[in-house]
């Protein structure tokens, strides 16, 4: 969620009264934003350097509150101090619109462009700063770090239309970037900003493309190289009176949302808002931008009332919706419907469910009637695997072993090399983007977690006896998700002696509780009808030679190898930094379901 810092005194001036921190926190709570911090009392040097700020967290879909102007306006509307303004376009004095022609080559890199002209704007330092900060917030959030949308703003009086949006090889684009003195071409610019902390992270968006997007005026002056940087020539200053905004994008919806936000937040500082004529025949995007007409929607009165649990007449609903920026009236077509105009600021409103939520906010979430309408009886049931797992957990604990919960993600070597196991491929689920080497795969065995737990508890006296019942994961191409979990039970003991009989005894105990009888290997192999478990010596490099056994199970007429137990090989102990002998047992619980 974005956090916006606003001047406390200025905001309270806009709201027409002083608030204590608690009162303002309460207002935010009711409106659905969050007061993160009031710096009035802060002693930090950066806070003392400026007037007290309110740091406000804004829901990620409220692009209309990413700057001081938007927060003040929406709160004023909510507090019924004003109605939401209606933004309208005016024709320029001479009647001729500024035009921007989009060349077809731009489809190769960044096909869309929109824009608007703000005439007769009056900047102050605070407004100017807010204007820049809003662009930055939009770039970070809605525009996904400028990949989807990017904004360029220009002093219209320094350039001359008509404008063109083109895509050219980087070497052919030459200009002085914003706040620089040296002219450079597109290629040089990439090198120049390579190490730049702020801009360096956007270069990848176009760097490897054969053509770079660029906006020119009629004198071939470069306005900007989206989404990286503007030209220095057309830079806006505090004295700028007429602003040309150009917005390039990959996404048709978002380019207009951004346009709307800039107009709604800063249009009121301008004498007029003038459209830009976009000429883009190759993709049918020729139009005048922006379209400031509110979006007309309908909402069902019954739906609004039912879900909120209210019983309000249509008129009253309309009045409440006004506090959230809507213009609503009972529909002329049906008394069961409302005609709702959604202002350009409310890009987050997609469905009448959004209108319903706003009605609930205007009414007050915490004033809604709290009555539980659900009278339906229900029958509970546990997941069979969890029920089985719990049986094993309780029996292991009752046998004197302590339950541990290590992590499911682990490194590749803990799961394989350290246990002397080979990754034959196609077994372990691998992560594409872990932040650390600790998390490379989903474990295929519970042993690494148990051994790491013992290792971090070496300071305790031995014997240490621990167990875990939890899932491991495997690649399984037969599944929709190409993988599956398997519920395992595992235990480990570290002591002065190996503890081999201890894990064996625990296995016997669990098997007894799961109603599986011990049978000899001969009997098990001879008689397929004989149910029970037996153990067979096995050669497994995880364990000391001659001290490992695989666990076989005959259940429901089928033979399974469900696990293995044994004394860990000294090389395994060394890897996990275990000073004493350790024996382990691990079985798959699935066959017992």
């Amino acid at each position, binding site marked *: 969620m974005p956090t916006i810092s606003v001047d406390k005194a200025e905001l309270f001036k806009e709201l027409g009264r002083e608030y204590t921190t608690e009162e303002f926190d309460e207002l935010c709570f009711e409106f659905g934003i969050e007061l993160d911090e009031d710096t009035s009392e802060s002693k930090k040097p950066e806070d003392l350097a400026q007037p007290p700020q309110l740091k406000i967290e804004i829901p990620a879909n409220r692009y209309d509150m990413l700057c001081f102007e938007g927060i003040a306006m929406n709160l004023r509307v909510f507090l019924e101090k004003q109605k939401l303004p209606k933004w309208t376009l005016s024709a320029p004095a001479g009647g001729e619109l500024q035009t921007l022609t989009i060349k077809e080559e731009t489809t190769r890199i960044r096909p869309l462009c929109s824009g608007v002209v703000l005439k007769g704007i009056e900047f102050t330092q605070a407004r100017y700063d807010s204007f820049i900060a809003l662009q930055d917030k939009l770039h970070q959030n809605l525009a996904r770090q400028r990949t*989807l949308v990017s904004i360029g703003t220009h002093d219209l009086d320094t350039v001359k239309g008509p404008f063109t949006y083109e895509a050219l090889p980087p070497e052919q684009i030459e200009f002085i970037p914003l706040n620089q003195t040296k002219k450079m071409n597109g290629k040089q610019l990439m090198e120049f900003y390579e190490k730049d902390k702020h801009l360096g992270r956007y270069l990848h968006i176009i760097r490897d493309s054969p053509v770079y997007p660029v906006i020119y005026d009629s004198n071939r002056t470069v306005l900007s190289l989206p989404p990286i940087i503007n030209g220095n020539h057309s830079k806006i200053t505090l004295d700028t009176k007429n602003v040309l905004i150009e917005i390039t994008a990959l*996404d048709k919806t978002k380019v207009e949302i951004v346009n709307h936000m800039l107009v709604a937040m800063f249009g009121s500082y301008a004498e007029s808002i003038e459209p830009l004529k976009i000429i883009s025949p190759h993709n049918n995007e020729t139009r005048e931008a922006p379209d400031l007409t509110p979006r007309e929607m309908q909402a069902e009165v019954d739906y609004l009332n039912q879900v909120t649990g209210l019983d309000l007449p249509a008129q009253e609903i309309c009045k409440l919706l006004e506090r959230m920026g809507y213009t609503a009236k009972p529909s002329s077509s049906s008394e069961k419907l409302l005609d709702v105009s959604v202002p350009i600021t409310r890009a987050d409103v997609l*469905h009448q469910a959004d209108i319903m939520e706003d009605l609930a906010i205007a009414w007050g*979430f915490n004033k809604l009637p709290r009555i539980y309408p659900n009278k339906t009886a229900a*029958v509970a*049931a546990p997941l069979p695997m969890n029920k089985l797992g719990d049986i094993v957990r309780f029996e292991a604990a009752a046998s004197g072993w302590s339950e541990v919960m290590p992590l499911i993600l682990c490194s590749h070597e803990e799961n394989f090399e350290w246990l002397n196991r080979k990754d034959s491929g196609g077994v372990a689920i691998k992560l594409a983007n872990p932040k650390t080497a600790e998390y490379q795969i989903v474990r295929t065995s519970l042993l690494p977690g148990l051994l790491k737990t013992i290792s971090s508890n070496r300071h305790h006296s031995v014997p*240490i006896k621990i167990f875990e019942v939890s899932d491991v994961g495997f690649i399984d191409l037969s599944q929709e998700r190409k993988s599956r979990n398997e519920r395992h039970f595992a235990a480990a003991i570290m002591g002065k002696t190996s503890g081999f009989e201890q894990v064996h005894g625990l296995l016997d105990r669990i098997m007894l509780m799961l109603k599986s009888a011990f049978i000899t290997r001969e009997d098990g192999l001879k008689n397929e009808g004989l149910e029970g478990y037996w153990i067979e010596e096995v050669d497994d490099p995880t364990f000391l030679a001659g001290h490992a056994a695989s666990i076989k199970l005959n259940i429901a007429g089928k033979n399974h190898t469900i696990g293995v137990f044994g004394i860990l090989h000294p090389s395994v102990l060394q890897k996990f930094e275990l000073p004493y002998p350790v024996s382990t047992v691990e079985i798959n619980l699935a066959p017992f379901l």
Partner: protein
Amino acid sequence: MPGTRGPVPVVSESKGDLAHDVLQLLDQKQPLHTSEDLPQVPQPEIKAALDRLASRSMVQYETSDREDVILTKEAQTIVEEGSHEFKVWDAVKKNGGLPVKELEKHVGKDSAKVGQGNAFRNKWIKKDGDNLVLVAQEVEDTARELLRKIGETKSLDDKKVLTDLKKRKLITLSKVISYTVSKGPKYAKEIPVEVTDLTAEMLANGSWESANFKPYNFNALGASQNAGALHPLNKVRQEFRNIFFNQGFVEMPTGHFVDSGFWNFDALFVPQQHPARDMQDTFFISDPPKADKPRADPDTEAQMDAMEEGARRLFATPEKRDIKPRDYEQYFQNVKDVHEKGAFGSIGYRYPWSEDECLKLVLRTHTTAVSTWVLHRLAEDPRPARYFSIDRVFRNETVDATHLAEFHQIEGVIADFGLTLGGLMKFLEDFFSKMGISNLRFKPAYNPYTEPSMEVFGYHIGLGKWVEIGNSGMFRPEMLEPMGLPKDLRVYGFGLSLERPTMIKYGVSNIRELLGHKVDLEFIRTQHAVRLDKN
């Protein structure tokens, strides 16, 4: 503070049997005053012997402590030889006058210095030229007498004199603990032979009847149990499961850590450009590479059937229910449409939707992915239903005291006709009251798959402030209607992490002390049983 383990402390035999001596002495004299009768024995040894006897009711004793006035070495010399001034007077008298210079030779340096002045002041002697001559023929050495008395009584009532003597380093004060001992109800001259425990042999030969049992130390802990233990987090999990079971919830099949973008995001109406789908927030899977499009999953289906059999049996009616088989193709298309073009009364997000992005595999970021699957299943036969799950979820977070890459999500889902937002608040009030949290507040919030969305705040008495304890909302029509659920079937969803309430409740400030391999086994073994309603 609990007592220490082990038997009652007993004086070791090698030091001579003091307890025995006490019994002998008591036979002759009662009460005993240890300071007089056993002046040489160190106090701790006396205490141990008396405790041993008292625990057997053989003696009773009272403790008194007082401050003794003790003479210093210098004072003792005065008591033996007389005060400095007396020594000076005596020397002058014996020699019938004495030159000042020679006094030191007769009485020593210390006495000459201090004694001369005092003897002048007492008008015992005077100076006559260079000679000291006698004034008083007979003197009384009061200083010596005072110290002698103090030496005998070890006390001095006059506080002023006491302070003066202390300053002159003639006395020191010492705290003395002494005991007044008398015979107890079971007094005897000898300690009877004792047995430490009742044995099978004693039962067999009847000796238990006459046996003298060594008393048990009721101030100590009992024997340590080599007990196994369940993990505290799983104990809290069990409490939550019980709350859900008591409310008729069916547990959801969460047995797959890996899910597709479709189930984890797209079907939940999370747009493909949402920050949650960033590499920074979600673990993507490199192997296996890609999920299939959603399709039937008979194994998981069978688990659900088994769990819901009870409800089906109980609520069975003569008329046959209409089952509308799921159409996975249609569902997939509906999800695509509602994102890309809008559908089901929504204008949608209107962006080019990518099937490739949708079929990417991820480690599930929430178990709501499973709720989605279960709700799609419900569309076959839309009816009131309640589901829950508590299982592991994964976030590609930078690990710190409150964040791990894995944690447990508690998730509840209620589907019914005619649900209201206030009803969800009421339900949550009831739900959280079972963990001792009453007085809930709800804050409007944003969540891509619920509308309205509410953050749940509870007043934490211990912390004295409102804390966020969970998230909740009603699933968006854009999530439910593509599944084929009817428009008037509304669905509550609510969730919280298992770790957070556990940490708040048990004062754990670092999540790594609760989950993962670094947890201390002693912590696991000593955490008390979890009773959420009892604190």
